[in-house]
């Protein structure tokens, strides 16, 4: 690929959303909404076009030469500042350089493509909101941050993008800042992100400190390509424990995953995601479908050379992923807020992706990310249409009968649900079966993690079709639902585009159980992610496929039996297994546990600090320093009398002192 072309195009990709942010932010409500309605989505779609050109240019290259690193500028470089040959090796060089390869281009396509559709949708959704310009400023900076995160080739700018994403998500979740619950939700999300950030920082710093090169020398590099080249198998082994040392690489893997878990809402850092539904619905679509929550999957996939050296850390990742998938699936079955159900489904699906990248099925995990981005954005935007039509009612108990009043939205939501549930021909089917098939082949010796993964299927199709049934079928149960109208074209169009995508994108990779293989997707990612170490045998794969499919259909049948025909009482579980129902309804009590175990002790500690330590110790010490500086300053300024004779005297005095000292030294 032509480096200059890539440089210009990637500058456009990063620059356009930034410019859009600047326009919307600086205007601060002064520009007419109509202008921002063009610039806001326009910059993202422009970035998408530039990404497409990069993608096409990349496809024209042989697979082996599709990765390119472009240096934009040297930002901080102590090896330049030192200039000595020796110091150049220990110097710290943080270029602003980006990596364009199949993995980052895939992420860029999804971020700008799906993100662009969501921006278009937002023009309709937010049309009446007084904070219209502010909203697009936040949305654009969010896209910029996310792009920086996936494009950066240095740990430094990865960390900067990572932190900017956290900030932008905070701003978007707390967008309706007059609503206390929104502000609290934003704060919760941000605090959780920062906990994850610390993990990422520490992991990155440990890599920087400890990575050794081929000759055992410390590299002290933040260049990610250099890191991966030196961490992989075949690199020089140091102390018999690999270039980083066995315990060290495990620690790094776990710390990096702490960052990934916060972004991707994995246990134990998952509680922010459902609360984040306080933001406007396009935000939910953007954050929970295309971008932020997938950053964790991207991080593990991008750092897979490290996880390949750290089986313990990778196993932990897989374990947490599948556990979160199961837990979120169970919770999703009892929630009544339409967006929260979808949020838990996101958590569950991301759990499956994390599981996949944990067991080493990187390509399968990324494929699930790709299809999920399409159908989950679809579900959120369709839900957004419903919420918009119902004047911000989100409780499915207040809906009903919408299939007649909002036909297109109903069809779109159903397509999204079918894709999510993994029903054949829809995208989710192919990606999920590939993912679970890889899980079966690559997982621990006993395939029980796979069993859990397949069981998640039944939960998935149950909870999403429960929403379809309660919200769209039956009779309207509220005034608003009675008078619901179909969404305007501007909001319907992105939904329909996404519905089309959710139907077809699965065919990019049909590669399981002896089917005629179409491997466009995995072949594209192969130069970065390699191939899985093992694949399931055809027989096992076919059985797995059948089991997964039957369980998905079983979930739908169950919904029909419970909510459609009433063959099974809705009160069955609440009455006979009240603890299970409560566990699910109360979201496994994590909020309560954290409240008792973390929040309250922290608040108490903070209160003590505020009442005792801050006024007595901190202010005392700081005040002391301040007072002594002020006193010193007052002492010194008395030299500056304003009298010329004093100045000349002092001048002469110090010159003489200098000469006297010189004389003493020489004698």
């Amino acid at each position, binding site marked *: 690929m032509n480096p200059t072309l890539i440089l210009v195009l990637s500058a456009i990709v990063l620059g356009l959303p930034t410019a859009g942010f600047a326009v919307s932010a600086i205007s601060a409500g002064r520009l007419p909404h109509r202008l921002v309605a063009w610039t806001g989505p326009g910059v993202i779609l422009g970035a998408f076009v530039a990404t497409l050109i990069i993608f096409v240019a990349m496809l024209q290259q042989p697979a082996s030469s599709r990765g390119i690193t472009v240096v934009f*500028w040297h930002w901080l470089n102590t090896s330049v500042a030192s200039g000595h040959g020796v110091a150049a090796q220990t110097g710290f060089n943080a270029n602003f350089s980006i990596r364009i390869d199949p993995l980052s281009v895939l992420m860029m396509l999804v971020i700008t493509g799906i993100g662009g559709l969501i921006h278009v949708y937002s023009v309709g959704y937010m049309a009446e909101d007084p904070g219209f310009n502010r909203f697009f400023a936040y949305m654009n900076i969010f896209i910029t941050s996310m792009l920086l995160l996936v494009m950066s080739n240095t740990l430094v700018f990865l960390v900067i993008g990572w932190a900017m994403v956290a900030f932008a998500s905070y701003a978007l979740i707390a967008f309706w800042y007059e609503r206390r619950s929104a502000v609290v939700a934003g704060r919760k999300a941000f605090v959780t992100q920062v906990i994850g950030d610390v993990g990422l920082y520490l992991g990155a710093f440990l890599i920087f400190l400890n990575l050794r090169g081929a000759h055992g020398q410390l590299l002290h590099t933040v260049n990610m390509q250099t890191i991966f080249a030196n961490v992989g198998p075949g690199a020089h082994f140091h102390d018999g424990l690999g270039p980083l040392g066995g315990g060290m690489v495990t620690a790094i893997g776990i710390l990096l995953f702490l960052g990934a878990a916060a972004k991707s809402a994995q246990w134990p850092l998952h509680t922010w995601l459902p609360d984040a539904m306080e933001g406007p619905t396009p935000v939910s679509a953007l954050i929970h479908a295309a971008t932020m929550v997938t950053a964790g999957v991207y991080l593990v996939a991008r750092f897979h050379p490290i996880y390949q050296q750290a089986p313990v850390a990778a196993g932990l990742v897989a374990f947490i992923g599948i556990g979160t998938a199961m837990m979120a699936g169970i919770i999703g079955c009892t929630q009544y807020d339409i967006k929260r159900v979808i949020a838990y489904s996101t958590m569950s699906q991301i759990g499956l992706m994390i599981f996949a990248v944990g067991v080493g099925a990187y390509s399968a995990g990324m494929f699930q990310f790709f299809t999920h981005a399409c159908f989950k954005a679809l579900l959120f935007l369709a839900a957004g249409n419903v919420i918009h039509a119902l004047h911000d009612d989100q409780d499915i108990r207040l809906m009903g009968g919408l299939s007649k009043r909002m036909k297109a939205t109903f069809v779109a939501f159903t397509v999204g649900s079918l894709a999510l549930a993994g029903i054949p021909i829809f995208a989710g089917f192919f990606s999920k079966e590939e993912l679970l098939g890889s899980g079966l082949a690559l997982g621990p010796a006993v395939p029980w993690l796979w069993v859990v993964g397949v069981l998640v299927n039944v939960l998935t199709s149950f909870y999403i079709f429960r929403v379809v049934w309660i919200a769209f079928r039956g009779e309207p149960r509220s005034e608003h639902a009675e008078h619901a109208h179909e969404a305007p074209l501007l909001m319907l169009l992105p939904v329909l585009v996404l519905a089309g995508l959710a139907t077809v994108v699965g065919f990019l990779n049909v590669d399981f159980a002896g089917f005629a293989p179409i491997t466009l997707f995995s072949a594209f990612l192969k130069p970065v992610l390699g191939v899985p170490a093992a694949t399931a045998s055809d027989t096992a794969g076919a059985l797995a496929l059948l089991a997964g499919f039957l369980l998905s259909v079983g979930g739908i049948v169950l919904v029909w039996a419970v909510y459609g025909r009433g063959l099974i009482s809705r009160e069955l579980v609440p009455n006979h297994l009240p603890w299970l129902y409560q566990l699910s309804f109360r979201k496994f009590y994590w909020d309560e546990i954290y409240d008792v175990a973390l929040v309250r002790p922290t608040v108490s500690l903070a209160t003590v600090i505020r009442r005792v330590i801050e006024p007595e110790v901190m202010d005392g010490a700081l005040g002391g320093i301040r007072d002594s500086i002020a006193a010193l300053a007052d002492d010194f300024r008395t030299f500056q009398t304003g009298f010329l004779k004093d100045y000349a005297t*002092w001048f002469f005095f*110090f010159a003489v002192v200098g*000469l006297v000292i010189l004389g003493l030294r020489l004698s």
Partner: protein
Amino acid sequence: MTTLLSLPPWFPLHFVPASNLVGILPVLIVGGGSVLVLLADLAVPRRGNLVLPVISGVVVLGALGTAVGQWILNATNPVVFNGAFADDRFALFADFVVLLTALAVICLSPGYLRRRGMEEGEYYILLLASLTGMLVLSGATNLIVIFLGVELLSIPLYVLAGFARDEPLSQEAAMKYLLLGGFASGFLLYGMALIYGETGHTGLAAIHQQLLQGALSHSFDPMLLAGIALLSVGLLFKVSAAPFQWWTPDVYQGSPAIVTTFMSVATKVAAFAVFLRLFSATLAPYRSEWEVPIAVVAIISMVFGNLVAVAQTSVKRVLAYSGIAQAGYILIGVAVGSPDGTQAALYYLAAYAFMNTGAFAVLTILSQRGEDCDRYSQLAGLWRRQPLLAGLMALFMLSLAGFPMTVGFFGKFFLFSAAIHDGQLPLAIWGILTSAVSLFYYLRVILVMFTAVPDADSDTAPTLAGLSLEGTAVASSTAASVGIPAGVVVVLAGVGTVVLGIFPALIYTLLQGITVVHG
């Protein structure tokens, strides 16, 4: 010596080789320009026209263009006039900074002078004359030329300091500056005399050779050392390093703000140029002898400047003490002595030009008839009246304090990094500690601008023409327009402060090719 036949026979300097004239072309342009302005001043009516500033601006632009051309075409010449002057990249870099500062000052001048009622033609003549001295100084490689440059730089400034003729503070400043400047020149000259007496040379290259021989035999000549010490005292006075800084606060405060702008940036750059040339090249053999004294002066300057600034109530005085502290930081680069140190010091000078010119430019824009904007109370609530100016001023303050993403951060970063690489950790530690103290007074300016309630009488502050944000300027009926040039200057300074904080390599790559020569 190259050919001298290219000049026509009627040219009065036909005995001078053309390459020499090319070498001092920026000096000739600015010097000739000052004469041109002198003549033009006789021809044009006195008040309220822009002929003189336009001529001055064109002259400075011409000199700048020449310097840039010499840099790009690599038409440098380290030996001009038999080694009295060097037209090398080091000098050209210093010329860039000085000329850009002068251009900024010229753009700010008409509006300021009109508001303060000081529209006299002599102003531009003196400005260009002083600028000539600075350009001489940046390339001087002979003691005599150094002295010439110092005096040519200083004497017009003495007059300019007292340019507000009916303000006692300004007169006092001029008098103090003149007397103390003369006093310092005595030291400078005495030092030069001693050096000449011991070495028999005034050319820096020849002196360097003598020092080299002495250093090789480990016999340091005490008289020579005394000469170096006195010479240093004279130069330390010019860069306002403590303990020779006494004049600085009074003169900065008393002089008209526009003169302070020029004085605080351009003078410092030119004086540091000669300082760096002397110490990192000519006096390098005696480094073991001067390294510690310079480091001590650096520390005293950082401590004294930053501490006393805390106790000030006048913004101009705060910036004066800040200037003393900044001189201390730049002296770190001198004390380090390595090429890194020199490059870091040059980087800092460029950074200083952006942020300090910007800060003073805001003060000149806010200055009204009768008095300069100098008290904290005049800045109070600026954010409500002039959000753009307040934002830019906050940016300059943060940059002076060394915040990341501003040019000041990299200025300090390169200096401290050079000190650490050279094994002079204490210098870096003192620098960092005093930087922390400096936050006290830089942030106070920001605090006042963003929180305090404006004075009733400061509502008449002029708005930034075309740039003031809608609905924020109060009392617009009384607000006078500053004019586009001043607005452009302050905005460009802000842009430079940010852009160079993100792309430090823009300047640093320029500096990589610089080696200091001494004729």
